[in-house]
């Protein structure tokens, strides 16, 4: 957006906030020349500035409002409640225009003739400006707004500040003003704020105290608490002491003092709600909805700091409910609902937490649409989408970049989604849940801690140093030892832990803090803290775990602030100062969360394949039974418009992602379409890509593949398998890739090999399917591949002294299985004693892995994880050649 517009928005918003209050005051003091002058000047400035920025709508409205104000100023018109209402209404409109400008970068379309006519009537002294019913001065109480002002002052215990709420519909906004004194300057006896006006004599009971003073007090109390804890700790070791009684008393006093000071930081949640009626009201005006915003539990108190964190998420959610949740009045009527929709905000305390519910009686979440959208965005496959439960689908709205709104409006859908809301809430240790019933409405439940100043933390030790981990992010503790169920494993160089049915990525605190290597004391049992950051779980390896303590969080000193793994420090009862770890920061330090997510994906992948079933893509091409190909070999499914397919000599090519992709028909006899779209399976092998043209993609099925019969390879078939009770040909992707590449590069038939790296690989697998899949891939990566179909054959090669740099072996083979093979390779007199061994397994249970390791495998890779295999082979080959 234009720099000047930005400036204008900032300037105007400042002015407008000042203006609201001034106008209300004007009604009370119609003869206050200064006040009139100030209001006039602000409007005048807005008008003058609009001219420069090309904002004709705003300029015109400001001009007419200024006319009326001009007459007040020169005293030719007296101020009446009706005309004040009209002026307020004009300001509402100005605000709306400014908000629209802020959101869209341009003035909203439309005109303000209605208002201008009435302003002119007042200006010309013709009418008494009767407001239309919609904006009748409300008889309902306004929502009190209590907010720290720009000077950092926070009212203690409370102060009031009024959003002009002439049109607000918030009947249940229990005004906190009721038992709180209003400052005298605010005590304007508008009919809308009777309670505030009724209590001016109470004003002397409250003071404005700077936030800084409160923060200092809090710090001092924390120090006091810590000192008391120290004293108590000392006292525990002494049975008889003259200090016992006074210390007991000190203990109580300090506790009460701490509570009292904490109280000063507490503010009613209505502070975060204050602007909501206005926002909802703006939306109702903008999109023509009828919405009643009901607010319950506005007096519920929570820590100022927490309040700041939830303000934006709350605003966003209410905006969402109003904009997307509540239907238009006509639609509601058709559905038999009352025309006016209701958004209910409800806050209450529940065991050290505050619960905030935001519910609407709108249309609810359309899970079908979310499914469709998720598939469209490539978040999940169609198959997966069908398998998800309603609840799981609903949770998807918390995924990044997800919005189900069909159109982005000025009000919501500005790129900030529910993922941001969730992140903000989780950042302060809160949780958010959602329930939704289609056609009935949606309810969000937010649970957040009351304060962040004192938290429960787990004290842990690494390399003799103690640290605190906030209890909120600790899911569980796992003790690692030889006898324990959980084991440390290694996948592609990432340490992981198998815990019950899931694999967790691990980080070593020792390594992160550079306190030495994990391996220095390998025999010692270690502890793993299972931490949760957002939806993501990981384990932190530590040496010892002590107990949990209530700690006072002190900010990290500025010189350490750039270290994101610490969120603060604290003083323990024994007087030692320790750092508080930030699991979020740790997750980020360890190689951003995305790479952790990648590790997670690999883990998921392994877990998938351990289920023994292989997802297969079934398609039709040419006559005969459908064919199948392992889904993991297919990079993408594409529908390419026939018109886009170009011919280059005998070959067909298509422009695909900035490259030319060769297209190969499944068989030469197949009838290709002349129009419409062509279904294409895209295979990619490293940086090469090809498309296989097929007639129709039938389905994705999960099957245990058992390739029955090796067919003639030249037809591009590996063999047949029984899939869903039907025999299907399983195609050999390598065959088509080699055709594509040979055609493409004009080279000899067969795979175009990568640069020979002089290394050789022995591949032991009884399945022709895997041999055919892996051998070409490894040779493409530059390895000389020797593939054999059983372990005995491999061991024969050992006797002939054939050298290999890496041996890859299947585990389940007839005759000698992989484990026995590994033991034979690792036997003392074996020629291959030092050759790295990689297991290839479709079974990845903890037991299998452990057995593999015991037998002598260096690494294990899931079948179908071709990239993983290549990485492992490269890594191990590299290591090996460095050693040798």
């Amino acid at each position, binding site marked *: 957006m234009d720099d*000047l517009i930005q400036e204008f928005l900032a300037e105007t918003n400042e002015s407008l906030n000042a203006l609201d209050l001034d106008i209300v005051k004007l009604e009370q003091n119609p003869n206050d020349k200064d006040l009139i002058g100030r209001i006039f*000047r602000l409007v005048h400035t807005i008008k*003058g*500035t609009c001219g*420069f920025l090309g904002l004709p709508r705003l300029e015109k409205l400001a001009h007419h409002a200024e*006319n009326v104000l001009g007459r007040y100023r020169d005293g030719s018109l007296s101020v009446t409640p009706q005309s004040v209402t009209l002026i307020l209404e004009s300001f509402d409109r100005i605000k709306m225009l400014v908000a629209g400008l802020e959101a869209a970068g341009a003035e909203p379309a439309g005109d303000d003739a209605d208002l201008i006519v009435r302003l002119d009537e007042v200006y010309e002294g013709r009418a008494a400006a009767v407001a239309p019913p919609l904006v009748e001065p409300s008889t309902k109480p306004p929502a009190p707004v209590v907010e720290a002002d720009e000077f950092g002052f926070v009212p203690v215990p409370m102060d009031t500040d009024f959003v002009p709420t002439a049109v607000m519909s918030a009947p249940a906004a229990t005004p906190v003003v009721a038992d709180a004194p209003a400052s005298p300057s605010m005590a304007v006896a508008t009919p809308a704020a009777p309670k505030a006006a009724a209590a001016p004599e109470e004003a002397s009971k409250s003071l404005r105290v700077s936030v800084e003073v409160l923060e200092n007090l809090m710090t001092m109390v924390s120090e006091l608490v810590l000192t008391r804890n120290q004293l108590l700790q000392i006292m525990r070791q002494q049975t008889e002491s003259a200090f016992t009684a006074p210390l007991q008393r000190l203990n109580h006093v300090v506790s009460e003092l701490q509570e009292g000071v904490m109280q000063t930081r507490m503010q009613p949640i209505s502070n975060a709600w204050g602007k909501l009626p206005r926002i909802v009201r703006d939306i109702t005006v903008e999109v023509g909805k009828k919405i009643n915003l009901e607010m319950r539990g506005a007096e519920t108190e929570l820590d100022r700091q927490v309040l700041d964190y939830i303000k934006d998420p709350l605003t966003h959610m209410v905006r969402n409910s109003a904009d997307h949740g509540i239907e238009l009045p006509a639609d509601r009527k058709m559905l038999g609902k009352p025309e006016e929709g209701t958004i209910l905000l409800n806050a209450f305390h529940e065991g050290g937490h505050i619960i905030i519910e935001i519910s609407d009686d709108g249309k609810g979440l359309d899970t079908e649409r979310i499914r469709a959208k998720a598939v469209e965005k490539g978040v999940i496959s169609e198959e997966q989408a069908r398998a998800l439960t309603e609840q799981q689908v609903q949770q998807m709205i918390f995924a990044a970049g997800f919005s189900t709104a069909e159109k982005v409006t000025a009000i919501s859908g500005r790129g900030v989604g529910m993922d941001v809301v969730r992140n903000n809430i989780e950042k302060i240790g809160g949780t958010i849940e959602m329930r939704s019933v289609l056609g009935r409405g949606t309810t969000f439940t937010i649970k957040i801690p009351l304060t962040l100043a004192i938290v429960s933390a787990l004290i842990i030790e690494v390399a003799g140093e103690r640290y605190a981990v906030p209890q909120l992010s600790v899911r569980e503790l796992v003790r690692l030892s030889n006898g324990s169920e959980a084991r440390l494993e290694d996948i592609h160089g990432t340490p992981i832990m198998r815990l019950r049915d899931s694999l967790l990525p691990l980080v070593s605190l020792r390594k992160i803090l550079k306190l030495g290597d994990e391996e220095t004391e390998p025999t010692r049992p270690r502890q793993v803290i299972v931490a949760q950051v957002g939806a993501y779980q990981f384990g932190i390896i530590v040496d010892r775990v002590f107990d949990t303590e209530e700690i006072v969080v002190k900010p990290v000193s500025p010189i350490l602030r750039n270290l994101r793994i610490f969120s603060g420090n604290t003083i323990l009862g024994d007087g030692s100062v320790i750092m508080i770890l930030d699991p979020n920061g740790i997750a980020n330090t360890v190689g951003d969360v995305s790479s952790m997510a990648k590790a997670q994906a690999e883990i998921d992948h392994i877990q998938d394949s351990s289920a023994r079933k292989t997802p297969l893509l079934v398609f039709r091409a040419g006559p005969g039974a459908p064919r199948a190909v392992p889904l993991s070999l297919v990079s993408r499914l594409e529908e390419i418009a026939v018109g886009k397919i170009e011919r280059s000599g005998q070959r067909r090519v298509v422009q695909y992602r900035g490259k030319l992709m060769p297209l190969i028909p499944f068989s030469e006899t197949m009838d290709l379409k002349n129009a419409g779209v062509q279904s294409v399976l895209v295979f990619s092998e490293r940086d090469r890509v090809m498309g296989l043209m097929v007639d129709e993609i039938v389905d994705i099925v999960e099957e245990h593949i058992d390739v029955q019969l090796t067919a003639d390879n030249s037809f591009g078939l590996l063999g047949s398998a029984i899939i869903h009770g039907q025999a299907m040909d399983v195609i050999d992707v390598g065959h088509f890739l080699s055709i594509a590449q040979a055609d493409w590069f004009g080279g000899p038939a067969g795979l175009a090999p990568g640069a020979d790296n002089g290394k050789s690989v022995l591949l032991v697998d009884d399945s022709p399917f895997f041999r055919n899949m892996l051998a070409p891939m490894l040779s493409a990566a530059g390895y000389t591949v020797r593939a054999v179909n059983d372990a005995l054959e491999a061991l024969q090669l050992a006797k002939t002294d054939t050298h290999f740099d890496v041996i890859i072996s299947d585990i389940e083979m007839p005759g000698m299985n992989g484990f026995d093979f590994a033991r034979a390779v690792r036997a003392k007199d074996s020629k291959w004693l030092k050759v790295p061994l990689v297991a290839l397994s479709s079974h990845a249970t903890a037991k299998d892995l452990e057995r593999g390791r015991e037998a002598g495998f260096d690494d294990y890779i899931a079948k179908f994880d071709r990239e993983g295999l290549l990485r492992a082979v490269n890594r191990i080959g590299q290591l090996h050649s460095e050693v040798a």
Partner: protein
Amino acid sequence: MKTCLIVDDSRVVRKVARKIFEDLGFACSEAEDGDKAYIACMSDMPHVILLDWNMPVMNGIEFLRKLRASNGGDAPKVIFCTTENEITFIQEAMAAGADEYIMKPFDSHIVQGKLEQIEVL
């Protein structure tokens, strides 16, 4: 280099004006009300003053009268800014010692024309 003092209570207007005047080769300073403008003039009298009339603390007319009455205050060329419904004030401003007036919104072209008229450019 010629100097120009921009007096307006709106940051946006000052920003716009500054751009225009700087493009015309002026060194610019800003003041947000008449009082501050007067102080600025006393320490360093500019060649040209672009003056808004409606400002808090001390408005344009008051500033202009005070300036013209001060020592050396008759030197700067003063261009008075106004909007269309203040015609009566233009007369008042000219009487108070303004050299030229200009309507908001103005652009570079208009400012240049006015400056040529008062022979600053």
